[in-house]
């Protein structure tokens, strides 16, 4: 059933469009850099001054730019739609009487959303690598620590960074999944999830609530960049992934207890 769900979801025009848009973001940035010559050293988002020297950085700029807004936006669409979308189509009742099993269905939805998170990260990287390779020279990669590594190792780290960026969305996806079990209106679930991302960003900028900053699920979203250090600095990434795991546990459990007992009227 997992395969059927994945095939069905990735066949949707909406999902294809979301991934395409994500891939287009770094491509668009690469074109901009190519046309304008790019900012001088040290200006603009991280990595952007490097793009014209090495196309691989288009992927990393893409990730840097996508992580705060575009990536969470698309993941919120998928997570918010997961259960509420089935409910609003009416397909939820037919899945449940087959019987798909409520726990099984929820788990499959969770895995599908997680797969989308990773696919979303990879789409950004793929779009960036492709555009970078077409528009700029490729070569040995200068890390943030000013050492150089081979192109192959650089691509490897870029793809890993994409996966880490995708996995950073897991906590938010779990919240979205939970909200999705509360309603039959997918748009409501999507908006509420995005709302929480915005709320986190706001809280993150308020120094009076500094105590909770380390626990905001958005806190370490940029930690994927640490993969471009030499040697790789894992503390931020580990903290990020553990935090996502904690959010997944809490909101996954909430979604499960809600979904396995709820009256399905849709």
């Amino acid at each position, binding site marked *: *059933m997992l*395969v*059927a*769900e994945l095939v*069905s979801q990735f*066949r*949707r*025009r909406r999902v294809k469009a979301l991934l395409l848009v994500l891939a287009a973001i770094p491509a668009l940035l690469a074109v901009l850099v190519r046309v304008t010559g790019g900012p001088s050293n040290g200006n603009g988002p991280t990595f952007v001054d490097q793009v014209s020297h090495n196309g691989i950085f288009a992927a990393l700029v893409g990730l840097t730019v996508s992580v705060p807004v575009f990536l969470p936006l698309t993941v919120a669409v998928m997570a918010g739609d997961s259960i509420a979308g089935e409910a609003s*189509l*009416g*397909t939820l*009742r*037919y*899945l*449940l*009487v*087959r*019987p*798909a*099993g409520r726990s099984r*269905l929820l788990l499959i939805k969770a895995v599908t959303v997680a797969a989308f998170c990773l696919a979303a990260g990879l789409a950004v990287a793929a779009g960036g690598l492709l555009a970078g390779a077409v528009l700029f020279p490729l070569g040995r990669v200068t890390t943030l620590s000013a050492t150089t590594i081979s192109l192959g190792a650089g691509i490897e780290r870029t793809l890993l960074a994409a996966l880490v960026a995708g996995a950073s969305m897991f906590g938010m996806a779990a919240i979205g999944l939970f909200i999705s079990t509360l309603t039959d209106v997918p748009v409501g679930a999507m908006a509420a999830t995005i709302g929480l991302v915005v709320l986190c960003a706001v809280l993150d900028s308020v120094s009076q609530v500094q105590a909770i900053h380390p626990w905001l699920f958005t806190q370490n979203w940029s930690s994927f960049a640490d993969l471009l250090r030499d040697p790789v600095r894992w503390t931020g990434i580990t903290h990020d992934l553990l935090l996502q795991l904690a959010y997944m546990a809490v909101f996954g459990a909430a979604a499960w207890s809600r979904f396995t*007992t709820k*009256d*399905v*009227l849709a």
Partner: protein
Amino acid sequence: MVEPSGATAIETSGLRKQFGPVAAVDGIDLRVPVGSIFGFLGPNGSGKTTTIRVLLGLLNPTAGSCRLFGQPMPEAAPDILPKVGALIEGPAFYPWLTGAQNLARFDAAAPDGDRRTRAARIDQALTRVGLTAAAARKYKAYSLGMRQRLGLASALLQPRRLLVLDEPTNGMDPQGTREIRHLIQELSRDGTTVFLSSHLLSEVEQVCTHVAVMSLGKILAQSTIVELQATGARRLAVETVQVNDAATVFERLGLTEVKIDGESITGRLDGQQAEDCCRALVEAGVGVRSLTTIRPTLEDTFVALTGEGFDVAR
């Protein structure tokens, strides 16, 4: 072909489902014999669909219990639901998938959806509901009747012991309605119990062996269709030129609700025999052109049970 053993496909006792202050289903005892075609009738808002949702484990009952083939629901859902095909409140599919892809999706969701036989079973189900030609078309391009047919096909992907069909011919043309009726009868002959919720009384009258009438969350009547019709009052219909003389005789005999329409007169029989009425009419010098008794239609019985009001009950 109702089994004599008295085994039930569906059995509820004191089943109740409350939404806030309203009891949508108010303590019903339903008994659907194995092998029957059971018509589940009721006006809009009477609680039919809520009952079906509780039966299939989509809603938790507030009180009471229900069993499918003797097994308690919703506890036995994983065992019993694969043997139940259902059409609940209209079809629902993924608009971006084709008819065949949609069926594959739901078959994959079932615990017994064997992948090796899937394609063959999908073909067979589509043929059965006459949808083969549209199998490769996207669901969003389907008409209402085609959607309904796909819903039925989905219910028929596996051999089922019970089919729960909620308004299965909704949106279908007369030809389609007829096909579905034949399909239901064919499935019943193969031993499938059919639980048919409908407000199309003529449809129920034509195919059902048993019937229950629900209103305001309660079951008002439940029996074989023959028994139910026997409970309603018969009417005597006489065609004659002398309708006024006939009316006098009718009154003398104690027939009530006498209605005159041109050269025909009808009256409600309350125990009087048609033969005696005929003799009385002739003796009174009324020239009788024809005399018949009219059995109440299911519609008459239904209206008598649920009240004539057209408005939704609540």
